[in-house]
């Protein structure tokens, strides 16, 4: 199946939205305007973009601590994302989640997760409920090589395979887990090598090329929808920024980080392709750039102008009755 020109362009815009949103996030964090931890996915935009482009709105995803891209690609509103990063009442989670725990149930975003290896069993459950309730949706879960060392990932793959559930396990391999390299966490050259142990299908794609990711995702999604069980899709990509903002990456080989944009920029790859194939002109790409810049500026403004959460809102949402635990 070919890729429609509009979709090629749209994926470029989605990647650009993620890039500019996160660049702004980095700047706000550096200026001391954002509290807490922030993990950025700059350089990895093609992975969530290509994956989510293969999904239906009803399909669900679980994201990671490095999840802004996953959530934006699933259709999130930048303003509500920014408001959440700022801990504001208008954020997706009313300021209770922050960067590492954004969810939007309406968009099928079951949650970013601060716990490695926790989203994968949850994703299996989303696929299980789809089957039980007779709903035509599939479940996608993102994780990295670091998380791949977690037992939860193993159990989830085994469970999805034993029960033949429609789950796409997306291994986003960016070369690093926190401050240590792939080889400290994984003993095989590719996670695809593990798939045989679960009896599931697996493929590896170039995670810098959004169209390669989309192709792999379409195939995986197709298998899931036709009831053939789970699929593992590995996307090899690059983490440009530190593990968290403020991490100077002194542990990486000299020159590696500086060379990344030249070698692995998913945006440049796609814009070159769009220009080459005559799908977009320089002027059209400029227009997209301006539109995205405006969206980001508005998002920041929305966040800044949004009301703070009331301190006592901390007491809400523990239980669905909003009642509290403790002694009655």
């Amino acid at each position, binding site marked *: 199946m070919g890729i429609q020109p509009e979709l090629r362009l749209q994926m470029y815009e989605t990647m650009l939205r993620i890039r500019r949103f996160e660049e702004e996030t980095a700047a706000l964090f550096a200026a001391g305007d954002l509290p807490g931890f922030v993990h950025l996915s700059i350089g990895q935009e093609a992975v969530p973009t290509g994956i989510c482009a293969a999904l239906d709105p009803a399909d669900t995803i679980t994201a990671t601590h490095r999840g802004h891209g996953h959530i934006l690609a699933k259709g999130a509103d930048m303003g509500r994302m920014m408001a959440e990063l700022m801990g504001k009442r208008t954020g997706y*989670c009313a300021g*209770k989640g922050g960067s590492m725990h954004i969810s939007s149930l309406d968009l099928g975003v079951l949650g970013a997760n601060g*716990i490695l290896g926790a989203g994968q069993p*949850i994703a299996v459950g989303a696929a299980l*409920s789809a089957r039980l309730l007779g709903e035509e949706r599939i479940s996608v879960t993102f994780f990295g090589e670091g998380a791949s060392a977690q037992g939860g990932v193993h159990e989830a793959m085994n469970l999805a395979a034993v029960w033949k559930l429609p789950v796409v396990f997306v291994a986003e391999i960016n070369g690093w887990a926190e401050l240590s390299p792939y080889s400290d966490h994984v003993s095989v050259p590719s996670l695809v090598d593990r798939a045989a142990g679960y009896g599931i299908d697996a493929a590896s794609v170039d995670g810098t090329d959004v169209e390669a990711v989309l192709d792999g995702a379409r195939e995986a999604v197709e298998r899931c929808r036709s009831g053939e069980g789970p699929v593992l899709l590995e996307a090899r990509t690059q983490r440009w920024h530190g593990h968290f903002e403020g991490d100077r990456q002194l542990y990486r080989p000299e020159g590696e980080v500086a060379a990344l944009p030249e070698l692995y920029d998913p945006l440049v790859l796609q814009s070159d392709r769009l220009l080459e194939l005559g799908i977009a002109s320089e002027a059209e790409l400029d227009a997209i750039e301006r539109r995205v810049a405006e969206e980001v500026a508005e998002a920041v403004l929305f966040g800044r102008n949004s009301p703070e959460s009331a301190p006592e809102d901390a007491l809400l*949402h*523990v239980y669905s009755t909003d009642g509290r635990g403790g002694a*009655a």
Partner: protein
Amino acid sequence: MKYYAAIREALRCELERDPRVFFMGEDVGKPGGIYAQSRGLQEEFGVERVRDTPAGELGFMGAAVGAALTGARPVVEISFADFIPVCLDQLVNQAAKIRYMSGGQARVPLTVVTFGGAGRNAGPQHSGSYEALLGSIPGLRVVMPSTPYDVQGFLKAAIRDDDPTIVILNKALLGLADDSEAGVEPIPFGEAAVRREGEDVTIVAWSAMVHTALEAADRLAAEDGVSAEVIDLRSIQPLDGETIGASARKTGRVVTVQETVSFAGIGAEVAAEVSRRAFGWLDAPVQIVGPPFTPVPFSKLMEEFVLPDAGSIVRAVREIL
């Protein structure tokens, strides 16, 4: 009805009532459960709704959380409460926090049924209950039924509730019978039950220890002419401070008794409630009866040595009379 059969009755009722409900765990489907607690349910409701799982608690507990988040109402059995630590992340960081972290968007209507309790020579890794651990997690509810009636009522309440609830059953009570029949209504969380009224001392217990406390109350009446009130907490989280306080104001003396170690335990919470609500009425300090700070040993002699029995409760009461 017997305690184990009440489990099956509640499950059957809820599976019938709501197509979103499903039950899963190790050997609960085709084999019908190690205690026959789900015998016949798979034949009745099918393999999708009464599901055998692989032996990977972290995976299937996580799957239950995910299913609960997306419209189903899972009931998960963890065959021994001691296996809960294996899947604790999915309870503590996921089930308990997801609603909160989502700013109220999400609901996690998850029910966990597990078998705790000592006294069956099951050894250190098969005799725990963990109610204090689980009861200290905001977002979770914890109940510990001591009768077949309560098993039915609390299981139904848990399954109909929109929040994650852990029903800790007691292995030692599986064969216990009462005169309850099918059709028990859901019991609201956070309401203790006065199992025996009394004037001189309040004994607070939960799960199997309720029966030990009742035995002690009989002995106190017969041997000492002491009238003991026995309160069954039933619900650990939330805790019914009001009933505890009212009883303490009436009797002026409180003894709590538990099967799990007392440090950072539920007895200490009861003592705090008593002190807050009945300090001026107290004639003696609250006594907490519980095992020493050890795991539960295997040997019958050693296990009997560490677990409270009616004798230890009677002694504790005599000390403060």
